[in-house]
């Protein structure tokens, strides 16, 4: 059974912003900046899935929410190419090919196949720049 998560999580203030509670939400305009400085524990506490990849699509962060949905542990997917081996359902022009863009902040409705069950989700694709260290795929259950 999937643990009930809080709707938002207190989060370190991104550089350049006033200090204080900065709840991180799926649609937060500054979410990418917050994700960049988040610890693995903070990512695990989020109420939506977070997949952190390098610019080649190699997974280097897979939070608990996403792991629970997919049935795949972080240990199993970290180091693997996300679009080809972890979630081939995203390996098309709607998702994977979008990350070829220099920068990206796009949301779209999609259908994942968690444990073979078609599951409506809302995806958010995030990439700061071609020189960024990471890019992110966020998953919110519809």
């Amino acid at each position: 059974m999937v643990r009930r998560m809080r709707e938002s999580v207190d989060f370190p203030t991104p550089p350049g912003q006033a200090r204080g509670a900065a709840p991180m939400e799926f649609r937060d305009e500054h979410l990418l900046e917050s994700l960049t400085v988040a610890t693995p524990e903070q990512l695990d506490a989020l109420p939506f899935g977070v997949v952190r990849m390098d610019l080649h699509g190699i997974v280097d962060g897979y939070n608990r929410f996403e792991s629970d949905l997919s049935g795949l542990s972080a240990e199993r997917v970290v180091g693997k190419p996300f679009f080809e081996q972890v979630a081939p359902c995203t390996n098309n022009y709607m998702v994977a090919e979008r990350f070829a863009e220099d920068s990206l902040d796009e949301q779209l409705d999609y259908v994942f196949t968690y444990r073979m069950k078609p599951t409506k989700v809302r995806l958010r694709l995030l990439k700061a720049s071609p020189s960024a260290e990471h890019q992110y795929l966020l998953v919110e259950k519809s």
Partner: protein
Amino acid sequence: MPTASIDHEEFIQFLYQCPVGIAQIDPGGGITLLNAKGSQLLMPHAPRALLENLFDVLDPHDPTLRGLPSTFEGYGTLCEHRVVRVESPDAGSPRVQHLAFTLLKIGPETIMAVFEDVSRVVAAEDEARDLLTTAAIESGRSELAAEVLHDIGNAVVGIGTRTATLLEDSGWPELDQLGKLGAFLSLRAEELAASLGAKKAEALARLVGEIHGALDDRRRRTEESMQSFTASVHHIQEILNLHRHYARQNARGLRERIPLRAIAEDALTIQASALEKRSIAIERRTAPGLPKLSLDRTRMIQVLGNLLKNACEAFDACPAEAGRTIVVEIAPAPAGPGVRMELRDNACGFAPEQAESFFEKDTSTKGRGSGLGLYHCRKVVEAHGGTLVLRSDGPGCGASSVLTLPDTPTPEPDHA
């Protein structure tokens, strides 16, 4: 929170990475299970990002699939490898895929759908069909061309013979007689003046002299025209002979070892009028000691002819200027045994990023000739193991067609 066992996790990952789409559907098409590949293939074609019913996704592309479960009794295969052409609903940039579906009834209310992307296979089959069609058309065209060329050749031979006869019989005895009359009148000027009067005698001699001069001038111009006409007839015969030679070769479809330069010269002869009409000079640069290559003579003359024609037509888009030149450079291939040929013009050129678009099938771009022609040219060159690229540094910088052909052994001909 559930913790997946390793076995369970491995099983899930196995299904996630299955290279074909698998779905479990009910007889109405409702999707109850779907693997990752299935989602990857179907999502781009799912209207409004809804993936609840397989037939809802496929109805716009093949509505007959929906009816299969109701007409099928028992268990087994409802359809096998049914290829459906699907187009994504994004009107801005429609994407076409060919998905092959196999539907298996595995329970009273359960159907397994297995599907895969066969777009490449379909494209390869289309290409093979095109090639067969092209080959058949070319074969028929060659036979027809050979017959037409033969008939035209006979007619041209008749014209040539008649022209030669006319040139040989170009004596103008009446003109000679008129000349003699003029000389006689000059010689007898005093006697004529005595009988006709001085003015009339002078006028008569002048009239005869002017008629003779005018006719002589006309004779000279006629002979010049006849000589030019004869040269043109010879040129037509030369081109006809070349085409007849290539048409015969085309019917045989053989490769032979020949110098690329020889084919280039034939192509230049065939394109001579196009070059002359545009006042384009040809500059030949041929390295010594180049090997003969194993070539399909007919196909290669089509390639070189097409490249030359494109280079000629590129000048049509430029303002008429002096110094129009096409450099035909033939040299050893830069890597490995073979020959590199470059046709370099100083016409209008193009943006470098456009180069590959000229080779797209069914693409035609003004100023660089027919896209269909270049598509087939590249196919012919690749069938010889070579490469064909277009290059330009940009508009106004001219352009090059670079052809590289390897020196490979001549294949044994097929004997039916």
